[in-house]
């Protein structure tokens, strides 16, 4: 094995990551390129396909502008779900859990249900706006932050206890929601259930720029920590030995996860399995354990899946609203197959 950096004296110094790059680059770059092209094609396809006006006319650009909201929503959701799930897997040292196990989405459901329950369906529809969305996101992030810092940063901090409390609270919120839902009138229940299933084409436009801003900041933080993430994935003891403050790092990761998930959930509603699919595929297709490979790849996969699915459903089956239902169905199947093949949690 002469495959070391010293065997390449012609390479201009200093060359960081010489060995890792050389071994992974030839395998990974084509995959990134292909996936990137498909993602761009999907974006362009959804934007311009099948517009009746002639390209370049005012009507054409108007249609593109209207579709842009959908595309932007999907890009944001794709990014949130992919990155949040990978971060959650790294933080919990586990690749089967999804952030929804921590009860994030149950919090969303309980907020929505309580709104309809206490103020009626009309009030819930009337208060849709930036303020409500922001408050809702803040509540979800607040819930998660309090839970994590309380349970995990304490002296007895233990990830498994925290996960268990998350599951129990999630179930508790779920029961509370279904209790309130039983008491609703059928018409109010209808208004509510329309909100509880993710719908990509019904997002809140005014919220998008803010969501994009928050995500840009979150992604900046994540990218700066990409090497830390690789070390965190080695587990508590090794990460501590290598000089990371493990609890602090993991708490930051969990809070980032909750920010991303809350944005995605407030935009399009709960998506339980989607992040799991793209994260798992990204691990398998990149074959890399480095976050600088896995994170962008999961994001691209996520864009391709969501936008591609949206394109096909909209222009082939004329049923765009069903996308998240189908993704959840396929994702659930994928989850079970993966679980059975792996044989253990």
């Amino acid at each position, binding site marked *: *094995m002469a495959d070391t950096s*010293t065997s390449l004296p012609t390479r201009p*110094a200093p060359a960081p990551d010489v060995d890792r790059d050389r071994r992974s680059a030839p395998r990974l770059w084509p995959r990134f390129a292909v996936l990137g092209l498909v993602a761009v094609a999907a974006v362009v396809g959804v934007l311009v396909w099948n517009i009746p006006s002639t390209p370049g006319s005012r009507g054409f650009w108007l249609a593109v502008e209207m579709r842009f909201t959908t595309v932007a929503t999907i890009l944001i959701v794709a990014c949130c779900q992919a990155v949040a799930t990978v971060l959650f897997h790294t933080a919990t040292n586990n690749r089967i859990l999804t952030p929804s196990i921590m009860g994030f989405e149950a919090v969303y459901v309980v907020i929505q249900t309580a709104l309809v329950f206490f103020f009626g369906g009309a009030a819930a529809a009337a208060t849709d706006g930036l303020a409500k969305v922001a408050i809702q996101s803040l509540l979800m992030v607040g819930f998660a932050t309090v839970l994590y810092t309380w349970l995990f940063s304490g002296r007895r901090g233990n990830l498994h206890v925290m996960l268990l409390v998350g599951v129990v609270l999630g179930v508790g919120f779920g029961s509370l929601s279904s209790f309130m839902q039983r008491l609703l009138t059928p018409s109010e229940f209808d208004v509510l259930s329309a909100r509880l299933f993710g719908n990509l084409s019904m997002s809140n436009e005014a919220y998008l720029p803010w969501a994009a801003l928050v995500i840009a900041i979150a992604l900046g933080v994540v990218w700066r920590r990409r*090497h830390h993430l690789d070390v965190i994935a080695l*587990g508590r*003891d*090794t990460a*501590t030995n290598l*000089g990371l*403050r493990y609890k602090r790092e993991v708490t930051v990761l969990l809070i980032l996860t909750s920010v991303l998930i809350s944005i995605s959930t407030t935009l399009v509603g709960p998506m339980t399995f989607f992040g799991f699919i793209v994260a798992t595929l990204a691990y398998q297709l990149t074959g890399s354990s480095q976050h600088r490979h896995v994170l962008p790849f999961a994001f691209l996969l996520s864009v391709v899946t969501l936008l591609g699915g949206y394109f096909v459903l909209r222009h082939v089956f004329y049923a765009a609203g069903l996308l998240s239902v189908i993704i959840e169905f396929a994702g659930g199947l994928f989850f079970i197959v993966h679980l059975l093949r792996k044989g253990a949690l």
Partner: protein
Amino acid sequence: MITLSDVTKTYGDTTVLGPLTLSVPGGGITALVGPNGAGKSTMLTIIGRLTEPTTGTVTIGGHDITRTPSRELARTASILRQENHFVTRLTVRELVGFGRFPHSRGRLTREDNRHVDQAIEFLDLGELEHRYLDQLSGGQRQRAYVAMVLAQDTDYILLDEPLNNLDMRHAVAMMKQLRKAADELGKTIVIVIHDINFASAYADHIIALTRGRVAQAGPPSELMTRSTLEEVFETPVEVRRDGPHPLAVYYR
């Protein structure tokens, strides 16, 4: 030098360690020996800040481990536990490369790669460097983890049973390499070890623990006596002094 003052570790009402006040001299190999449950690993992981002591303070090379930033400590002391679980798919070389993290924060420089190459060569992992960890035997993986700790290039190296899972050849090779690291590079090495004869042959200093307290401490020639070993391990032992090192014979 590593110093412990008034260090205790309790779980509920049970005291598993201490109170311990002792110092481990700088340089050379110090072996922690003792029966199961004597607190050897607890003591080592407390020194390596993986376990929080209930009371007391620990310093390594003058750094108080609770006050020194973790990153700075990671360039002074490294610790390897007995069991290392891993989730991600890593090659041996990638794992060893992580040992450079405290120095380069994840971007390996030429200098870092030199350390990685050295550590890989030191532990005879050249042929395995591109294999994934889950394709290795327990002993090979153990060597890969030790290589990571060596690549970290710290003055103090704490190893919890580094001979676990190693066959005769690799156990001897590992001890020789640790001896070399201590002699040539001036490292201070503290190991928890089960085979008292390895401690006798390679260590400069032996600390024997029983029930969380120091029973005996001193150079191997002093400790390797019938009465001391029988007291510490509570089992009949015969000590032979006909070779280069005293050997304990306790098999039947």
